[in-house]
C-alpha cells in the first residue's frame, strides 16, 4: 500500500502532499521536513531508494525522483515493488506533462485541485489504480469538461457514454 505522495521543491517547500493514512497537520509538516532533510543531502547519481523506517516507522520504503526543481516522493510498504513505484512517479510526471504541456513547478502550484484530480485517478486509497498516462489524461479531461458543463446546465449522464473505451 502506498502511504504518501509528496511533491516538494528543492527548497523544501511542499507543493503537494497526500497521506493515505491520516496524519495531523503538524505531523505532516514534520514528515515533509524530515523527508526533505534526507533528500537534500543525497548526492547525484545515487539510487532513488531510501529506507524510510526512521521517518515513517517500520516497513516503509521511500522512492524519490528529482525533476528540475522538484522532488517527487512516494512512500509505501513492502507490498509494493520499488522499481515499479519509480515508474509510477514517471507516470505521474508524464501525465502532468501531457496535461500542462511542458509542466513546471508553477503549474503544480496554480492547478492545485487538478493535480489532486490526476493523483486520485492514479492512486486510489493507497492502491495503484491506473498506470497509463493516456488513460489518465482522458479521464482528467473528461472530468474537467463535465465540471465546466455542470456549471451552467444540469448534467445528462448519457452524454458520458463515450468515456474510456479502450
Amino acid at each position: 500500500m502506498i502511504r504518501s505522495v509528496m511533491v516538494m521543491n528543492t527548497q523544501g517547500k511542499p507543493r503537494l502532499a497526500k497521506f493515505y493514512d491520516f496524519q495531523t497537520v503538524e505531523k505532516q509538516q514534520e514528515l515533509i521536513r524530515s523527508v526533505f532533510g534526507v533528500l537534500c543531502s543525497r548526492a547525484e547519481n545515487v539510487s532513488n531508494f531510501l529506507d524510510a523506517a526512521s521517518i515513517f516507522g517500520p516497513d516503509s520504503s521511500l522512492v524519490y525522483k528529482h525533476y528540475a526543481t522538484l522532488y517527487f516522493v512516494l512512500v509505501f510498504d513492502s507490498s509494493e515493488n520499488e522499481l515499479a513505484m519509480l515508474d509510477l512517479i514517471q507516470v505521474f510526471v508524464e501525465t502532468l506533462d501531457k496535461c500542462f504541456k511542458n509542466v513546471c513547478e508553477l503549474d503544480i502550484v496554480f492547478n492545485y485541485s487538478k493535480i489532486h484530480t490526476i493523483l486520485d485517478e492514479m492512486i486510489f486509497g493507497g492502491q495503484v489504480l491506473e498506470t497509463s498516462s493516456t488513460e489518465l489524461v482522458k479521464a482528467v479531461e473528461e472530468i474537467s469538461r463535465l465540471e465546466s458543463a455542470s456549471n451552467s446546465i444540469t448534467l445528462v449522464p448519457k452524454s458520458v457514454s463515450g468515456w474510456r473505451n479502450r
Partner: protein
Amino acid sequence: MEQLKTIGRELAMGSQGGFGQSKEFLELVKSIGEARSKAEEDRIVLHEIETLKRRISEPDIPKRKMKEFIIRLVYIEMLGHDASFGYIHAVKMTHDDTLLLKRTGYLAVTLFLNDDHDLIILIVNTIQKDLKSDNYLIVCAALNAVCRLINDETIPAVLPQVVDLLNHQKEAVRKKAIMALHRFYHKSPSSVSHLFSNFRKRLCDNDPGVMGATLCPLFDLITVDVNTYKDLVLSFVSILKQVAERRLPKGYDYHQMPAPFIQIRLLKILALLGSGDKLASEKMYTVVGDIFRKCDSTSNIGNAVLYECICCVSSIYPNPKLLEAAAEVISRFLKSDSHNLKYMGIDALGRLIKISPEIAEQHQLAVIDCLEDPDDTLKRKTFELLYKMTKSSNVEVIVDRMIDYMISINDNHYKTYIASRCVELAEQFAPSNHWFIQTMNKVFEHAGDLVNVKVAHNLMRLIAEGFGEDDDAADSQLRSSAVESYLRIIGEPKLPSVFLQVICWVFGEYGTADGKYSASYITGKLCDVAEAYSNDETVKAYAVTALMKIYAFEIASGRKVDMLPECQSLVEELSASHSTDLQQRAYELQAVVSLDAHAVEIIMPLDASCEDIEIDKNLSFLNSYVQQSLENGAQPYIPESERSGTLDISNFRSQDQHEASMHGLKFEAYELPKAPVTSRIPPASVAPSAELVPVPEPSYSRETHQVASVPSISDAGSTEPRLKLDGVRRVVWGKPTYSSPTSSTSNASQSTSNGVTQVDSAANVNSKARKTHDSRKPEAEITPEKQKLAASLFGGPSKTEKRPTSASHKVTKASSHAAEKSQAPKAAVVSNQATLEKINHQPPPDLLDLGEPTVTSSAPSVDPFKQLEGLLDTTQVTSTVNHGAVGATEAPDIMALYVGTPAGGQSSSAENSLPSNSYDINLTSELSNLTSGTTNAGATLPTQFTKGPNPKDALEKDALVRQMGVTPSSQNPNLFSDLLG
C-alpha cells in the same frame, strides 16, 4: 524577461478554463514563492487566513468564489497552518449539486478530516446519496471520500451501496468500488468478511483493469490465509500467462511491457501461494520461466517485473532452472551501472541466498563494491545482505565493517539498529572471547547510549563466567585482558553511561585480581570516573560499589588498606548525597572498611558474582525469635486471606470489574477468528543467544524448509470459515489462439539456459573446492588488509598503460591468459614485483568504476583478471604458502564472506598438506566462475553480458525519449525553466 515569462504563464493559465484561479490566489502563491524567510511566509499566510476567515462566512458568495476559497484553505493547510475554521464550509460544499463544487468539497474533506472527526456524521448521508447517483463522476468522488472518511463504525452505513457498485456499468466505478471494499477490509476485516466471494467473482471481470484492481484485496486476503485460495492458483497462472503473452488490449502496455503492474501483483500472489507448496509451485514454473525469458531488461519496469520474478522464485518450491535464471538476472543487476538495479540485485541476492547459498560467491566482488559505494541506501542494503550471510568464519570481517560504518554515521535510528545487529552477530558467532570483548568495547564506545542495557549485562556475565569451559587460566586471562583494555579506554572523554557501568563493575570484580595493578591505582581510576561523570548517579553508584569490592578484597587478603584522599572525600561527599541509593552505598563502604578480615570475606567473597544467592523464603532463621515472642504473649500472625471481618478488597474489586464488563453493552460485532500467523515469510532472524561458543553455520536448506512449513501449519490450524467457491472460470482476452505453450517454453528455456548451466557446473566445482580451503579461513582476517584487498579488487590494478586499449585485443589476451591459467594454474604465477607495480598504478577511486563489467562489452572478460591480479597482493600479505594460488589465497578474506564452515578444529598441518591441490581446483573454478564464457570459448561469452543494459542502448533510448519530449529529465533545460523560488 523572467517577468514576461511569468505573465505569459498566467495568461495561459487563465485561458485553461475550469481550473483557472483568480488573481488573488495567483498573488498569494507568488508572494509566498518570493518570501525570503519562513517568518515572512508565515506572515503572508496568516494574513491570508484572516482574509479567508472574514470572507468565507460572508453571505451569498458565488459558488466559483467559494470553490477557490476552499482550495486556498487546502493550500494553506499544506503549508502547515491551521485551516480548521473552514472545515465546515468544505463539508457544506459536498452537499452542493454541481459537480465542480461537490468534487472540490470531497477533495477538501478527504484532505482535512480524519475518519473519526466530528463532522463526518454530516457527510455520511451525502455519501450515501451520492453513491446512488446517476453521474458516475459523483459516484467516483463519493467512493474516494469513502476510502478516507469511513471508519469501522460507519462502514455498515455505506456498505450496501458500495457492494451494489460492484456491478456498475462503468469499469472505473467497479474498480473503485473494489478498492473501497479493500479499504474497508483494512479498517475492519470482519465488516466485509461475507463479501470475499465478490472478489473472486470480480477476478473474472470483462475489464482487465477491474481484474487488476481485484488483485490488491486478494493479495491481502491470501497473505492472511493461503489455503482458502489454493484453488485459484490455476486461474492466476492462466491470467499471468495471458498478460505475458500480450493478450490484453494495447492500452495496458506500459513502456512496451504488457500490463507490468498487473504482472507484478500476480507474481506476488503466486509467491504467497507457492510458498512451501510443491504442487502449486509446479504449476507456476512455466509461466515464471516465460516471463524471465520475455522480460525486457532495458527498461525500468521490465526490471521491476524481473525482480518480482526472483522474489517469486525464491519463495516458491525451488526449481533449479528458475533459480539459474534468477541468478543470471541478479548478476545482471549487480553488474549494472544503475544504483537502483544494484540495490535490487543486492536485495534479490539476499532472498535467493536462502535457497542456494552458493550463488553469492560469483557476486562477492560486486557485493564488496556495493559496500564501498558512497550511496548510503545501497550500503545499508548490503549490510542487510551480509547480516544474512554471517557465519562464524566471516563474522569478524562483517562486524568490523558494520562497526566502521556505525562510527561514520550520525543517524541515531540506524546507528541503534546496526549496533544491535553487531551485538547480535557477535554474541552468536564470536570466534574468541578476546575478540568479543574488543568488539563490544567498540560498540559501547561509539553507540553506548543506544544499545540495550541487557547487552551490557550479558557482557558482564560473559566476563564473569568465562566461556563455560573449565579452564580457569583462560578465564582469568580473559578478565585481565578486559581490565587492561578498559584501563586504556577509561581515559577517553565522554564515554557512554552504560559502558562506564560495565567498566566500573569489571574494575571492582577483577581490577586487582591478577595482582598486576595495585589497589590504589584502580581505586584512583574509579574515583576519577565518579568525579568526571558526577551528574550520572548510576555510574557513581557502580563506582562506589566497585571501590567497596576492591577494599574488601584487600582486607580479606590481609593487606592494609589505605584509602586515597580523593576516595575519602568522595565517600564523604556521597554519604551526604541527595540520592538515598548513593548514600547507602557510601555508608556500606565505610562500614565494610572498618570490619575485620574474616567478616569481610564472608560479606564480599572473591569472584563470587556468579554464585547463586540462596534465599530462604520461609525466613526460617527467625523461627526461634517468633517462638520467643509468642511465649512472651504476642499475638500469632494471621495471614491476610484468613483474616475474618475484613473484606478482601482486591478480590472484591476485581470481581466487580468483571461483572461490569459482563453487563456492559457490546458494541462491536464478534470478530472472526483469524489465522494466528500470517503467511508472510518471516525474516530469518536469529534469536540472540547468550552462548558465545562459535555455532556451526545453520544449514540454509533446512532453514527454508522450516520457513516454508510454518505458514502451512498455521493455516491448517486456522478456523476461518471456508468461502463458498464460485468456480472461477477461465478468462481469456484477445484471440483464442492457444497453441501449446508448454512445449515451446520448455524448449526455449532450455536453450537459454545453456550458457547458465556452465556457470552452474563451475559453481559446483567451486563449492567442492571450498571445503578444502575452508580450513584456512580463520587465519587471516584483518581489516586494513581487507580494505586494501577490496580496494585492489574493484579498482583493479590499472594496467592501462600496459594493456592495449582495443577491445578485441583485450579479449584475446584475457582469454588466452585464462586458458593458460586454467590449464596450468601453477604456471600462472605473477611475481611479487609485478603485483607491487600494479598496486602503485592504481587509479584514483573515482575512476575505479572503469573496471565494471557492463561498461564495455569487453570489460567483463578483462575484469576477473584484474581482480585476480589484485588479489595477488594479499597473497603476499596473508600468507606466503604459495603464490601460485592466485584466486585461492584471496579466499580467506573475500571468500570468508561467503563461504564457510567453522574450521576451528582443523589443524594448520592439514592446511599445509593440501594447499596446492585445493587451490588449483579452486583457482580453476574461480576463473571459470568469474569469466564463465571466457575460459571456455568465445561463443559463450555473450550469454552473460550482452543482455545487460548497455550504455549504447541506454543512450539511444534516452535520445528517443527526449525526442518524444515525454520524459522530463533534469538535463532537459526547457523543462521547469521558469519557476518560482
